[in-house]
C-alpha cells in the first residue's frame, strides 16, 4: 500500500542517506559541511512529517542555523581553498574500516533485536505549553535539573572561550 506518507518518507530517507555518504566521501572540507547541512535538513523534514514541529524547528535553529554556521565560520578562518583531505593509508585505513564495521554492526544489532512497540502516536501537533512545562517542571517528569546543568556547561564554555581568546 503506497501512501503519500510513505513516498515522502522514502524521498527524505534517500536524501539523508545520499547526503550522509557524500559528506564522508568528499575530499573538500567545506563541501562535507554543506552535505552535513543537507543531512540535518532531511532529519528536520522527518520531524516535520511526524508532526513534531517543535523538534523540527529546533533542529533547524540549533543544528542547521547554529552549528553548521559555526563549522563554516571556523573552516573559513582556518583553511584555504586548496586544502584537500589526504587519502588514508596503512594502519589508519584498517582502524577506520574496523570502526565503521563495528558501528554498523552495533546499529544493525540494536535495530533488528529491538522489539518495537506498536506505534501509539497521536496525530496532531504537540502543544508548546506542554513542552515548556515538561522542560521547566520540577515534578516527576520535569527536566529542570538537566536544563540548568546544561546552562552552566554553556556558561563555562563561554568563559573558557574568552579565557583562550584573551590570552596574550
Amino acid at each position, binding site marked *: 500500500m503506497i*501512501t*503519500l506518507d510513505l513516498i515522502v518518507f522514502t524521498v527524505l530517507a534517500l536524501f539523508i542517506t545520499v547526503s550522509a555518504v557524500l559528506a564522508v566521501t568528499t575530499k*573538500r572540507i*567545506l*563541501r562535507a559541511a*554543506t552535505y552535513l*547541512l543537507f543531512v540535518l535538513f532531511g532529519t528536520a523534514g522527518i520531524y516535520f512529517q511526524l508532526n513534531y*514541529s*517543535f523538534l*523540527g*524547528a*529546533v533542529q*533547524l*535553529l540549533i543544528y*542547521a*542555523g*547554529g552549528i*553548521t*554556521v559555526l563549522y*563554516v*565560520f571556523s*573552516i*573559513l578562518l582556518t583553511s584555504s*581553498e586548496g586544502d584537500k583531505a589526504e587519502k588514508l593509508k596503512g594502519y589508519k585505513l584498517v582502524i577506520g574500516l574496523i570502526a565503521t564495521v563495528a558501528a554498523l554492526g552495533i546499529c544493525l544489532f540494536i535495530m533488528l533485536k529491538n522489539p518495537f512497540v506498536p506505534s501509539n502516536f497521536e496525530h496532531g*501537533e504537540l*502543544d*508548546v505549553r506542554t513542552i515548556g512545562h515538561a522542560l521547566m517542571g520540577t515534578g516527576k517528569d520535569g527536566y529542570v535539573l538537566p536544563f540548568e546543568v546544561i546552562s552552566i556547561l554553556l556558561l563555562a564554555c563561554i568563559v573558557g572561550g574568552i579565557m583562550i581568546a584573551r590570552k596574550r
Partner: protein
Amino acid sequence: MFDFSVVTNWIHAQLTAVMPVGLAVFLECVVIGICLLLMYVVVAIIMIYMERKVCAAFQCRLGPNRVGPAGTVQVICDVFKMLTKEIIIIRHADKFLYNLAPYIVIIASVLAFSCIPINKGMEILDFNVGVLFLIAASSIGVVGILLAGWSSNNKYSLIGAMRSGAQMISYELSIGLSILTIVVLTDTMQFSEIVERQADGWFIFKGHIPALIAFIIYLIAGNAEVNRGPFDLPEAESELTAGYHTEYSGMHFGLFYVAEFVNLFIISAIAATIFLGGWMPLHIPGLDGFNTVMDYIPGFVWFFGKAFFVVLLLMWIKWTFPRLRIDQILTLEWKYLVPIGLVNLLLMVVVVVFKLHF
C-alpha cells in the same frame, strides 16, 4: 471579516470528491507552492520599484519614469534582462558550492515568507511554534552567504561574507529578544493566534512602553539582519566592490538581489503582524460603530498597508543615515541593543505579571 479558509475548504472538498485524499493533498501542495512563488516574485518586483522611487524621492530625483506609466514596467523589463544574461563560471572556484549558494539563500527566504499570515484563514505554514520556526528558517540564509563568499575565490567576497555572517548572527539575537517580548505578552507562538489576540487593540498599544521599545529594537535589528540601511557593510561599494555577490552574474546575482528585497519585506511583515496587528483591522474597544466600519476593509489590505508602511520606514532610515563601521555595528548590537532588549524582556514580564497592560 471574510474568512479565506471557506475557499480552501471548498476546494479541498471538491478535490476529495473525485480523487483519493493523498493525491488531493499532493495537488493542493503543488498549487500552493506555485501561488507562493508567484506572490514572492510579485512582492519582489513591487519592492524593487518602491525602493527606486523612494530612493529617488530622498535624493530629489524622479526615478524610473520612461517605461510604462510612471516607470512601472521598468522593473519587469529588468527581470527579463537579468534572466537572459550569461551566468559566468569562475575558474579555480568550487563550482558546486558556487552554484548552490544563491539557492540556499532563496530557500531560507521562501520558508520564512510562507510563515506570514496574509488574511484570516490564509496562512500557509501555521505551526504552533510559528515564531520559532520563522527564526529558524531565516537563520539558514547565513550559510548561503558564507558559502557564496568562500566559493567565489575572491578576497572581497570572503571579507564581505565574514562581515555579513558576524553581523547577521549578532543581530538575530536582538530580533529574537524583541519578538520574545511580544510572545510573553500573548503567551502563544502561533502567528494566527497572535493576530487573533489583537482584536481589541494592537500589541504596540496594549503592551505600551515595553512593546514600543521592542518595536524600535526590532526595526534597528531587522534592518541590520537584511544587510541594509546604515548596516550595509557586507556590500560596502567603496571598500568591497559588491561584497559576497561580487562574482555572481545573471540570475544567480538576481536571486541574491530578490532575496534581499523580499527579506526586507518579511522583516516588515513580521513587524506588522506582531506589533501592528497583521490583517486585524484597527479596533478601539467601546466604539462599536467605528469597529464595524473598519471590518469592511478586507484583511489583506490592512496587512499589505501595514507591511509597506514599515517598509517605507526602513527605506527612510536607509537613505537618510550614513554607513557605520563594522566595529561600530558590533558595539551597537552587543553593548546597547542586547542589554536593552534583556531589560525590556524583564520589564514586559513585570508588566504581564502585575497585569499593567491594557
